[in-house]
């Protein structure tokens, strides 16, 4: 219960003076002491350094250098267990079970612990880098990552075990040429492809009013305010390079600036509706965007789930080809089992089962007739989004592979302002 104090002004001031804090000499001395302590904290600040991930950070030594050599592989034995980390919805699933993994287990006796723990490359890399740097096992035998800066970092730091491709003969035998010997991993030293995709253009013919054939259509003023571009700066920058007719893997920094200029023009003219992550597909489906950069598998799935009119096109200037790759991180406890799975996967029958479900580009062309006949799914088999035609394959371009952090930083500094300003 509050009482209303009816005090006159001088008395009220007296009450405040008697009851409120004052600044005494003791307080001043004490606070000066605290201030002095604070200055000594600057010494502590220096100790808050962030360690590097390369060089002396890694627990390398004579033993680590030999990991992955043929002598080392000769000493490794099959263990009967496989820890497989992958992206969500990236393997055939039938009522919660994975038929391809079950067939693998019954044929080889290896139990597979399948974990869908990878949501994106950057956070997953950030998750495993500390363990790898400390020389500890990550807990996974196979991880799946997209080609890009984070995969290059893993390779540069020697955190992946070189593959013994003599134990994966099915790869050389059945893999499509576009996934063999890629720019980011020469001679498939560390990785074999899991699935690939194209980043091309998707559009709604009813809204654009005409067929789309060229990357210049993303700059068409008729689509002002309804063009979607990607917020991933690697995809965005590569689109700019393609428009200028530059092959991304051989581009230079001045090419990047030129690409950034035309992307900035596209934005300044009000053509771009938004820079999207994977939610571009929702915007396209709802009609907010009419034409957008897109990933091939998303359009296939949109067609199958109620939007059959959406089209995906490979622009005549070229289409960006990315690959999600299987690799064995350093410290993996069951590397031979990992190789056994890779070999098993590259059989056309198994690759067919997986591709039939995932609907991205299958790395095994021989799976096509199997999907058409034995799995009775001609829609997938005849789709150029799963089995690209030779004409499409010729237009496939790789991304620029960053060789060191400075290049990565430069690229970011050039293309981030277009998305973020």
């Amino acid at each position, binding site marked *: 219960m509050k009482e209303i104090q009816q005090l006159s002004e001088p008395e009220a001031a007296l009450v405040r003076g008697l009851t409120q804090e004052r600044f005494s000499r003791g307080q001043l001395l004490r606070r000066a002491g605290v201030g002095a302590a604070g200055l000594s904290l600057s010494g502590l*600040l220096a100790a808050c350094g962030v360690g*590097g991930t*390369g060089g002396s950070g890694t627990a390398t030594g004579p033993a680590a250098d030999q990991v992955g050599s043929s002598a080392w592989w000769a000493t490794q034995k099959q263990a009967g267990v496989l820890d497989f980390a992958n992206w969500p919805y990236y393997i055939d699933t039938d009522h919660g079970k994975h038929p391809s993994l079950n067939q693998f287990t019954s044929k080889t006796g290896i139990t597979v612990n399948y974990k869908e723990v990878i949501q994106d490359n950057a956070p997953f890399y950030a998750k495993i880098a500390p363990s790898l740097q400390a020389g500890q096992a990550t807990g996974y035998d196979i991880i799946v990552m997209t080609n890009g800066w984070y995969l290059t*970092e893993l390779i540069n730091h020697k955190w992946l075990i070189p593959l013994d491709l003599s134990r994966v003969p099915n790869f050389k035998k059945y893999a499509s040429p576009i996934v063999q010997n890629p720019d980011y991993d020469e001679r498939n030293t560390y990785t074999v492809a899991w699935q690939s995709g194209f980043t091309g253009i998707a559009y709604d013919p009813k809204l654009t009013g005409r067929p789309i054939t060229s990357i210049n259509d993303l700059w068409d003023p008729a689509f002002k305010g309804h063009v979607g571009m990607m917020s991933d700066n690697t995809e965005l920058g590569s689109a700019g390079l393609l428009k200028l007719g530059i092959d991304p893997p051989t581009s230079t920094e001045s090419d990047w600036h030129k690409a950034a200029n035309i992307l900035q023009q596209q934005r300044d003219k009000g053509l771009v509706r938004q820079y999207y992550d994977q939610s571009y597909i929702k915007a396209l489906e709802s009609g907010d965007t009419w034409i957008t950069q897109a990933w091939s598998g998303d359009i296939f799935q949109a067609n199958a789930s109620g939007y059959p009119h959406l089209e995906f096109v490979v622009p005549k200037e070229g289409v960006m080809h990315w690959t999600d790759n299987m690799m064995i991180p350093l410290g993996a406890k069951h590397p031979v089992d990992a190789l056994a799975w890779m070999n098993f996967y590259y059989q056309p029958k198994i690759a067919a089962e997986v591709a039939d479900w995932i609907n991205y580009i299958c790395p095994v062309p021989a799976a096509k007739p199997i999907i058409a006949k034995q799995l009775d799914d001609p829609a997938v088999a005849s789709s150029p989004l799963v089995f690209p035609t030779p004409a499409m394959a010729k237009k496939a371009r790789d991304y620029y592979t960053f060789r060191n952090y400075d290049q990565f930083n430069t690229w970011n500094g050039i293309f981030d302002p277009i998305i973020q300003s």
Partner: protein
Amino acid sequence: MGLRQRLTPYLLGMPGGVYLAVFFVVPLFAVLSVSLQTGNPDTGFTLTWHWHEYVTAIQRYHTQFVRSFEYAAISTVLALVLAYPMAYWIAFHGGRHKSTYLLLVLLPFFVSFVIRTLAWEFILSDEGFVLGTLKDWHMLPQSTHVLSTRTAVLAGLTYSALPFMVLPLYVALERIDRRLVRAASDLYAPPASSFARVILPLSAPGIFAGFLLVFVTNVGDYVNAAILGGPGTTMIGNVIQTSYLQNFDYPMASALSSLLIAGTLVVIFLYARAFGASRIQEYA
């Protein structure tokens, strides 16, 4: 007083103090320290007292900084305008069902914040049931779009801030002595006057608390701009997120974070001087 009695308050405060020291003070110093470091993720970062990082940060991102404070201020004012009538009604006219009404205000918290923002993306889509219907009735031109504009981001920020504004306001309004309101009407004050001169000033602590909660969270927000925004609506939170998590540019991200903390503190201090602290003491 014995030694034990003098130490007791500090011992009682120790768990909270340790928690604060470990999870607040140490990380704060770490962020300040990293902002002054140079290097790259491969070779490591070392403290070089690189103050120029702050200059670069302001040069590159001053637009986003100003924009974030602008959006936070607008969404705070909007949230206040929308939340005050709600809190007033629940406090003064809620009657027996006050807790039910409060539960209804809190209900959105049962759903993840990101999912609620995605729901707004669905509601505000060009041909969705809101805009599509209005366009069919020819109340809006066909080319209207709300998503990817500043309006959508502000709407999202205001919406997510509403419960944080309603609750402190409700608490402050609830605590007002009703006899003061009756006294005002006894002294011939019309209802509007008694509201403006009695209730509103007495709810000032609630407004301040609501302002703190809403402004501080919104100025660093990045979800609304990412999902509902478009070109030209990027907030400083998005920039910090990209810097830290994708580009691994720790010094820049830390410099941006430190600047954001400093800027927010300045705004709160200015608000407290203008509207709050000195007058609250007289009513306590």
